[in-house]
């Protein structure tokens, strides 16, 4: 068992790099996901993951299988879609989610078009579904850099995000532009999606953001609890998924996300709050006495 767990990590440098990359991503992507769920933007992450695709494709077409080029392209495409969607929503008064949905579809179609113009490529399946082999030391530095930056920015805007989620008017009254904070938050999300695609693939990267966050909501009602748990779930999924991927010869992205998915399903069934089991238990248990308050 111990051998099963550790031997791939001891024997292979690429597994160690993938492990560090997975842990670094698990430290920042799940907290972003917690904020996404709390802001009612659960599906925006998914849309942005699709939006990143044409940028990655352009990077691939121009520079071949170069991770910095593809990441940069993805980042640019993601920020462009987020920026355009934000502008259209502000200029027209339409809801931002519908603008994002429109732009990510345009972006996705452009991405598919670009890929088909070049003809299909085996390498590109790595882009879509992730490959632990893809994590060389350049990629690792990129991921660790993005994670560190995200951690710092998230810490800096943490209180703003919390207060804004609850009552945006309060912050506006204090002279903080909600739009700027929102833009920064979307930027962080895109940055993490592009950092995540080496191990997880562009379409799977959002999974490490959302599934730990949604699973954690069944276990905690406090923000710190949600963040800590989501990070822990992300890390367990990353490590477990990598090992599974290695031993079973499966692509790493789906392995990691499916593992997180299993944790989510178990949480939905047996979690402490609002799970199927918790609801059933509340029905059969007697009520608590009312508060000692008039």
């Amino acid at each position: 068992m111990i051998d099963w767990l550790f031997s791939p990590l001891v024997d292979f440098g690429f597994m160690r790099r993938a492990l560090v990359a997975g842990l670094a991503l698990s430290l920042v992507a799940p907290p972003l996901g917690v904020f996404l769920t709390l802001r009612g933007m659960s599906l925006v992450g998914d849309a942005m993951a699709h939006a990143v695709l044409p940028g990655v494709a352009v990077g691939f077409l121009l520079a071949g299988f170069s991770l910095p080029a593809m990441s940069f392209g993805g980042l640019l495409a993601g920020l462009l879609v987020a920026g355009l969607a934000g502008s259209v929503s502000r200029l027209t008064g339409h809801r931002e989610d519908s603008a994002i949905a429109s732009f990510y579809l345009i972006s996705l179609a452009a991405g598919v078009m670009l890929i088909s113009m070049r003809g299909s490529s085996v390498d590109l399946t790595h882009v879509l579904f992730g490959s632990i082999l893809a994590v060389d030391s350049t990629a690792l530095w990129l991921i660790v850099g993005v994670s560190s930056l995200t951690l710092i920015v998230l810490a800096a805007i943490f209180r703003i995000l919390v207060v804004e989620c609850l009552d945006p008017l309060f912050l506006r009254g204090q002279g903080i532009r909600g739009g700027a904070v929102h833009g920064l938050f979307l930027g962080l999300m895109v940055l993490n999606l592009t950092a995540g695609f080496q191990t997880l693939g562009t379409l799977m990267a959002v999974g490490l953001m959302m599934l730990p966050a949604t699973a954690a909501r069944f276990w905690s009602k406090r923000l710190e609890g949600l963040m800590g748990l989501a990070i822990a779930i992300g890390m367990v999924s990353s490590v477990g998924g990598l090992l599974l991927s290695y031993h079973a010869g499966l692509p790493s992205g789906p392995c990691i996300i499916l593992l997180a998915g299993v944790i989510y399903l178990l949480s939905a069934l047996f979690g402490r709050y609002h799970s199927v089991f918790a609801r059933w238990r509340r029905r059969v248990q007697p009520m608590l006495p009312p508060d000692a308050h008039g």
Partner: protein
Amino acid sequence: MARSMAKPDTLLTLESLSLAQGNRMVLENIDGHFEAGTITALVGANGAGKSTLVQGIMGELRPVSGHVRCEVPNARRAWLPQQLALDLTFPMSVEELVMSGCWPTHGSFKRYGPAEYRRGQAVMQRLGLQSFEHRPLGELSGGQRQRALLGRTLMQEAQLLLLDEPFANVDAATVEVLIDVLRAMAAEGAAIIIVLHDHDQMTRLADRVLRLERGHGIWSTPATIGDSSSSAETLA
């Protein structure tokens, strides 16, 4: 210009203020002074422009013509929206909400010190929230939430306070607590503007009344506005 300097304790002045929503004119030529220590009730039928006026005062809506002159810095202006406007499923405790009123002095980065926590405790005690301090907002009753929201503005040491129907969906005990606290805030020098419907609450709380009707503002006092109706009605 001369008018706004007429009274030294005037915190907010409206000068021929006209406000529109889109291209529909909602309010025209509203004038008024809001002095420190006074509570003004803002009344009017649905759609009369109460929320529009509040938006204009908070700087959310640019005047079509006229001016809003506010002597109170942004940080000390507080706006208490209707509870429905807030996402109260957010995983935050009463204490955390109250402490977020430290924003003017602490901003995004500064750590709350023991002095602030003591002040937070005092605020929660004053509002009768001490036994709920660690309770998530989602598990509170309407009245308890309203107390917590007022706690934030107390923490903020708001000098100009606007409230939108603070007594809606609130229990009778909370109404009493809120009225006491608002009166005390006014006595400490705050100017308070409060959107109200209930006449009894208006007579108990307000010094002056600004009624919005057909796009215009009419100033009066609680006594003159409803001599006919009984103010002895018991609170719900």
